[in-house]
């Protein structure tokens, strides 16, 4: 259970988030949508302490976490994994080493055991053949899969996806969608997905929140989004160039 309560965040004079509140329930696939630069990524980075809110509170499983210090955030981060927009693998390490790193650091595994375990994990995302390649030698879709494998190594309760399907070809994108849905259905993992990929939103989302001008515009199921007749929402979910969104 995650609750964002009245989150405020500004970069310099420019407010990005202005009193954002919503809850995410256990086990659901929760989408955060909105135009580029509206603060979606900023919002989820607050959850794992990469950014700190200027105001408001974040509750995770009955604990207020937005005031914890860097070391205090570590247990939270083990519970909430994040898949970055550009995958962000460590490019000085091979794929297997990337996946082995959290095992090595948090499970206390020896390097060799961690690498074997990492290869098993890579098999789940069908990347075992590329285990000894460096990230720069792979395509975007492959990197994304490795990044997901890495995020899942610590068996997190929550996984944050920052635009997981952006810059992927449609086939890879749908595979990622399928993976996210399966995580939720089979392992009970809660996924928070930042996206503006309409195909993903309407195929796998349980609930959606839409941010507009630093505030929550609308929260609800995909059906509710389709039904609402707000011009801004309608323009967004139909991807029209003309409309009230600047």
């Amino acid at each position, binding site marked *: 259970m995650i609750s964002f309560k009245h989150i405020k965040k500004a970069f310099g004079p420019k407010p990005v988030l202005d009193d954002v509140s919503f809850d995410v329930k256990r086990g659901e696939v929760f989408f955060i949508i909105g135009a580029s630069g509206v603060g979606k990524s900023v919002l989820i980075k607050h959850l794992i302490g990469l950014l700190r809110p200027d105001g408001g509170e974040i509750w995770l499983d009955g604990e207020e976490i937005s005031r914890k210090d860097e070391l205090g955030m570590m247990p939270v981060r083990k519970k909430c994994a994040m898949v970055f927009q550009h995958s962000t693998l460590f*490019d*000085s390490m091979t794929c297997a080493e990337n996946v082995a790193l959290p095992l090595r650091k948090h499970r206390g595994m020896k390097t060799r055991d961690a690498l074997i375990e990492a290869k098993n994990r890579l098999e789940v995302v069908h990347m075992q053949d590329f285990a000894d390649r*460096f*990230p*720069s*030698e792979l395509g975007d879709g492959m990197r994304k899969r490795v990044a997901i494998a890495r995020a899942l190594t610590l068996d997190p309760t929550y996984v944050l996806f920052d635009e997981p399907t952006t810059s992927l070809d449609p086939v890879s994108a749908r595979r990622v969608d399928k993976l996210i849905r399966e995580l939720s259905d089979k392992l009970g993992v809660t996924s928070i997905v930042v996206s503006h990929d309409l195909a993903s939103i309407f195929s796998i989302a349980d609930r959606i929140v839409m941010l507009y001008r630093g505030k929550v515009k609308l929260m609800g199921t995909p059906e509710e989004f389709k039904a609402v007749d707000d011009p801004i929402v309608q323009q967004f979910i139909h991807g029209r160039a003309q409309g009230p969104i600047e």
Partner: protein
Amino acid sequence: MSVQSRQATVAHRGFVFDLGSAAIDLARSGWELYSVFARTLYFVARGKREKGAVLRQMYEIGNKSAFFLTITMGFIGMILVYQSGLQTKRILPDFTLLGATYLELLVRDLAASIGALMLATRVGAGIAAEIGSMVVTEQVDALRMCAADPIDFLIKPRFIASVIMTTVLIIWAAAVAYVAGGATAYFAFDVPWRTFLNIQLVDHGDLITGLTKCVAYGAAIPIVSGYCGLSTFGGSEGVGWATTRAVVNSSLAIIVLNFFISAAAFVVFPK
């Protein structure tokens, strides 16, 4: 980093292989450096003149390095005199020639070489970072599309500016180091200013050697760093690599040039 990683994967083929590939790399880089140098000279003679470009670079290279150079050369002056003073005290407690010897060394070698090493880090890194960023953001390709030769447009102004400003800055640096050294001699070893201010050991040979070094270093820094900048590939890590190589290679170029010019001066102006 991936560049390195790839190098690392190649690095297991034995010493001879490493040596051979290093030699080939060296030869190739040497040739390319020479070609950049020759083309720069060609464009200096015949290229299009862009108004104000050289002046702007002179400001970038010269004025913006002056503070840094003053600090470092001031400290190196103090260190050098302090150390040689310690030795003089230990061996022959006679400080009458300290200033004269120091000035001679400064004019002939230290001002130019150490000053240029400092400039290589400051200016070399700057040039490589700037040109490297332009390469990875494809601005250099855009230049080519506008039918402007990157060497004419980017390296030539820096080359001219660097040759002039390096000489100017090194003369300034020598003065700073000399005054700092004199102050150290006065405060640490009670050497009077009048004794320290002794130019009897400096002859025309020293001056010519020193100025030759200024010009040679001034020419080497933009050529080497410009070459490193232009051969950038990959994203931000590529820029980092180019900058690193620029600093290292210009410093190396200075040390090697120093060796050859000093040896030549030793033969031409025997003492």
